[in-house]
């Protein structure tokens, strides 16, 4: 029985993913308190044989980025003639008249295991406070400039839009086809463990690269 305690070929088993995910979430909670913690979303009816844990994915949601008002999408209903509500409802002075503040953009991140590539995949999406989804162009404006150039130059990863494996809606994701290769490179450069990478550290190492692409940095302490 392969306990999968170490990874030597850049890939993870589905049990390894569960283990790595919990280790990652725990370390994040301790070292990265400027962000909310990742939560594990179990998939119902899909338990793993070996550890009796559920299959699932990691979720970090509602990360807020404030941007200037110009970014907000076109709302065509504004062009509709004012409704006759005007006459019916009298002005209520107890309602605070609010100024238009900055547009808030929210981001959700999911780390999902891909059984075909045998590596984790980062899915993400952005939306406004009203719920309207953000296009990739708008999202790229929210990313720090180093992320955008990383995306542009990197041959390891690029953003595609594909159906989320469990939510049946298109999400953006960082394509996993290069992951196996660069994880192997990462593990080879780790002196202490030779070419092996402990499963516990897999997601941390993986995220140290992938997170940069979407502007999420992890503190160095997490890598110990």
């Amino acid at each position, binding site marked *: 029985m392969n306990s999968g305690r170490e990874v030597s070929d850049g890939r993870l088993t589905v049990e390894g993913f569960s283990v790595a995910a919990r280790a990652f979430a725990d370390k994040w909670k301790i070292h990265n308190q400027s962000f909310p913690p990742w939560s594990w*979303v179990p998939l*119902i009816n899909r338990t793993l044989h070996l550890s009796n844990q559920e299959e699932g994915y990691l979720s970090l949601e509602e990360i807020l980025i404030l941007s200037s008002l110009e970014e907000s999408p076109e*709302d065509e209903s504004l062009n509709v003639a004012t*409704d006759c509500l005007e006459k019916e*409802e009298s002005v209520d002075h*107890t309602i605070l008249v609010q100024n238009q503040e900055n547009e808030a953009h929210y981001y959700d991140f999911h780390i999902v295991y891909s059984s075909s590539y045998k590596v984790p995949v980062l899915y993400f999406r952005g939306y406004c406070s009203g*719920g309207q989804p953000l296009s990739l162009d708008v999202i790229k404006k929210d990313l720090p400039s180093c992320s955008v150039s990383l995306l542009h130059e990197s041959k390891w990863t690029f953003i595609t839009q594909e159906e989320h494996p*469990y939510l049946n809606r298109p999400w953006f994701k960082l394509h996993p086809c290069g992951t196996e290769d660069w994880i192997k490179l990462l593990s080879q450069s780790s002196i202490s463990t030779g070419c092996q990478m402990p499963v516990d550290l897999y997601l941390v190492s993986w995220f140290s690269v992938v997170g940069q692409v979407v502007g999420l940095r992890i503190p160095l302490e997490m890598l110990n």
Partner: protein
Amino acid sequence: MSEKETSPAILQFAPLNSSVDEGFWHSFSSLKLDKLGIDDSPISITGFYGPCSHPQVSNHLTLLSESLPLDEQSSIASTSHGNRNKCPVPGILYNTNTLESFHKLDKQSLLKAEANKIWDDIQSGKALEDPAVLSRFLVISFADLKKWSFRYWFAFPALVLDPPASLVDLKPASAYFSSEEAESVSAACNEWRHSDLTTDVPFFLVSVSSDSKTSIRHLKDWEACQGDHHKLLFGFYDPCHLPNNPGWPLRNYLALIRSRWNLETVWFFCYRESRGFADLNLSLVGQASVTLASGESAPTVPNSVGWELNKGKRVPRSISLANSMDPTRLAVSAVDLNLKLMRWRALPSLDLNVLSSVKCLLLGAGTLGCQVARTLMGWGIRNITFVDYGKVAMSNPVRQSLYTFEDCVGRGEFKAVAAVKSLKQIFPAMESSGVVMAIPMPGHPISSQEEDSILADCKRLSDLIESHDAVFLLTDTRESRWLPSLLCANANKIAINAALGFDSYMVMRHGAGPTSLSDDMQNLDMNKTNKQRLGCYFCNDVVAPQDSMTDRTLDQQCTVTRPGLAPIAGALAVELLVGVLQHPLGINAKGDNSSLSNGGNNDDSPLGILPHQIRGSVSQFSQITLLGQASNSCTACSETVISEYRERGNSFILEAINHPTYLEDLTGLTELKKAANSFNLDWEDDDTDDEDVAVDM
């Protein structure tokens, strides 16, 4: 009369804002399509909100896919109670079937109905048991499931206090409590928030004893709280972040407090968080002054307000989700992704734009036409026109991959029409059209009555070739390829020719037209320029195209070929076209031979070599590439013929069709033959190299 400075200001509430997650619309669309149909009765839904968690942004009342009554199973565990940021709140959705009925909804009475429910819950005591009902809400919507756009309008009914409550004092909670009390309140709140049983109860009592011990109690424990407190506050999860205003839920809360407990002074606690813990700097404590009801026995329902504004205006909101819901768009992005992956992982210099914009004309929608069309689609080519005058026959569907049995039933569908339909079924974003037309052929003389319609067909064919970028010659006779070859040479369009024998195939690309090079170069040396052009299908002929069909037996007329050939030849034809399109010289690219290539990627084209002709056989499972130059005496693409066509137009065509020897005379083939016949050749010991023999197909 001057304003008294000491008179308290009217308490102003920050409106609650809505947020509808994309998932809600997805689930609602499924519900409407699968279950509801045109049924527009109101639907009970659940909204979710939580206390403010960010100092600069208020929280919203959110609708998620779980907001709809649970029906189908999902692979995610559904949100049950106990989610700290999702306090469930009952709501109702009125969705109309047309935009007109959306605008005609009587908003005031709908709002009043929901406000009445809140009032009833207050009177009956239900609001004490389940205080979330104080935040009951209403949504009206119109879901356009053809365009995947959704128009909606939220209302958060608030019972209006008359006269309005006034604000005596409002300050951050940390300023109101002593530091000991603050610590104790924070701890108690965090505990309340930590427990699954209480975390989603958005209204509660905060009781602080004189020795700074805090306990948080349910509203229904009001009586029990009397007497043993030093400070008693009405706490609630406040989604609003503003420092000077409490959030909307306080409105109905005050109505409840006034109605149940007859208090004139209300101390309230706007609970807000940051980083998942109580934040007493962000949270507010305030004192409101409420005018009691004038003691009537049967309290009447107050007025209500609460329609959400859209950027300050009283209009509904709308959202378009076509990009993530329209199946055609989803298919397009999936197909595009596939091609991009190919480029990303294997061929970084692949030009995908040229493929998606190229217009292909397929002459012939039979075995070759169907295979070519399918492979073109695989390359992301969207613009395909079919020309075929035949109908789908019963023997066709097994070999012609775009047709099915239905196409041949009855009198049979026209192939050009059936092919277009089939492409659309495979991929809805195809731009495809069909032309039912026969191609005029030399050697099939026409009567004078037919002349006009034949010439019209010629014109039509010429126009089609002009308006496309690449032409595939996929007909089933030799002579039907003559006119298209000529027209392509004339217009300098890429022509790909594929032909089948019984167990062999030939695929080639025609060279550029003779007038493709500049006039200056032409005048210099005609022979030289011709040498640089690759040949066409007819360049090696020594006779003009003739009638090859009459007097053949029936089974020879309908070409019989091994079924594996058409897919092979069709696929090679498309790969050859893509090679031409990716080559920097395009139609002028010189021909490569596989024996001469360096192996591996050519610098010129990322795809490899670009041959002129490919010939193969399934009897040998072999394939070779050939190179042929254009012939000065070619009946289809030579300088002579093209200039004659340009000069004489229709009369040239008619003569070529009616008198096949005309072309031979014109091009000098007649002379050539005479010369050849008068030459005695010794054929013994002549080892003909296979590669030099032109196989007549």
